[in-house]
């Protein structure tokens, strides 16, 4: 599994959130939570499927907490941590 820097992951997450919520990418705020960025439960599953496609990380199978989705950056860090551990 390829290691991707957290900042690059956050960038891709913002792109995906923008598609899911019908916003512009620059409107997705990386320090705000997924819910504050307009993600609901359906959107969350869509986002996890996109993460699986981009990074081959199955977040559904990894234990996730509220802290992991407290911001887009926090989710990016979680994904980076998993990809790092899988190397």
């Amino acid at each position, binding site marked *: 599994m390829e290691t991707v820097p957290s900042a690059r992951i956050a960038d891709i997450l913002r792109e995906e959130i923008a598609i899911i919520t019908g*916003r512009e990418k620059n409107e997705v705020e990386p320090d705000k939570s997924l819910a504050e960025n*307009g993600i609901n439960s359906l959107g*969350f599953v869509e986002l996890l*499927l996109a993460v699986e496609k981009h990074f081959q990380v199955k977040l559904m199978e990894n234990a996730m907490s509220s802290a992991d989705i407290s911001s887009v950056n926090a989710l990016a860090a979680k994904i980076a941590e998993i990809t790092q551990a899988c190397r």
Partner: protein
Amino acid sequence: MSKYYLSGIDWIAQALNRQCRKTPSRNNGFVIAFELEGLIRGDELRKFLKGADAAAKLLTGRTARHKFHLAPYWKCSAGNLNIDVEFSECPPDKDVCLAAADFANRPFRSKYEHLAVRLLARGENSLLLFKFDHLLFDGGGGELFLAALNDAAQFREPDCTLPQLSKWSDKFESGRNVNRFLRDINAGGKRDFFTFHAAHSGVSAANRFRTLHIPAAQAQAFFATGEEKLGPFMDTPFLLALIFGALAEPATGRGALDNDFILLPVTVDLRSGRDRKNRIFFNQWSLAPFSLPIAAASRPDLVVQAMKEQFIELVKSKFLADLDKANLLMRIIPLPLFAKMSSRIFAGTSGSCSFAFLPESGFKAKTFAGRKIRNLLHLPLIPPKPGIGIFINRYNNALNIIISFREGLISETELENLLATLRKAFEPVSG
């Protein structure tokens, strides 16, 4: 005059509406109830409702069909809006369910009417009821409409002015995907699904409601447990597992077998993102089927995981969007026939019990018409098939669980047991 073409889901809503034509309400509407602090004067309410005039052409419209291609559309009217408003008094302890049922079971005055209001002075406080027509609103849209009214905001035009009579191959493909998905649920016709209506012919039965209020602290503790087990954003699957477990008992009590399935048709609000608050009118939901064998009820942890897996699979398969697209083709079928077909929506059945969870998202204000809100409840009518639905809405972090059912479908003992099971699930764990 504006024309708004109906979506596939709007057409399903039309069919469900038709299924209710012999019931007292003659339609499939829903009530949003506000329990307010203090009294509202009649003239004050009428003045407040004047804000709806900005949406008058939609609120006085009706369904029509295009002459040549038959696509149904909402024909706006130039008529004046004359909302049916009634005022009355009731005892301070009058049950919201009784007041809402009296109102919900009354038909609209004409096919051009899609909103009605009742104001009840309940001692020193008020109970304000809005009845919405499902042809023009869904539950989320009703909340957004009331939020706009409360904020004195202008109503934006809906965005559906094309008949969408293109991309036929995409629509056929969606239809094929829906059929495959339903065939899998039905296991090629080999599964039996539990229904309450097996021995009940009640196509003309009145609707009744029962409610259960879950205070904020208990609701939060419940969802915290759900997050521990399933991860974040999994409130709906966690609630579904609870509903499944609660229904297993009456199903078994009525003789259902361990390998019979409980099928929950779930309404999912498709609004998201930036334009959410502008998507007030028409139906913006889809239907998702969740099912498990009754035997699974003895292993609650497996039920919880299974509901999560089915939720993910539904999103992955794009079933929710496919159902809407596929039904765009069905709009040319005469409504009576479509209504008959859609009474057996999933795998040849209308399901065991409808379910919907409306998280706090459309109406966030703490006051309405200048009065403090004590509670906001959604009380939807339920079509004779499946004849029972469990609907949950969150307001101010507390939950309202509403059981909506057709009279005679479920016994008082079964109802009490169902409510007791649901209540127990939210009780704090002692020791």
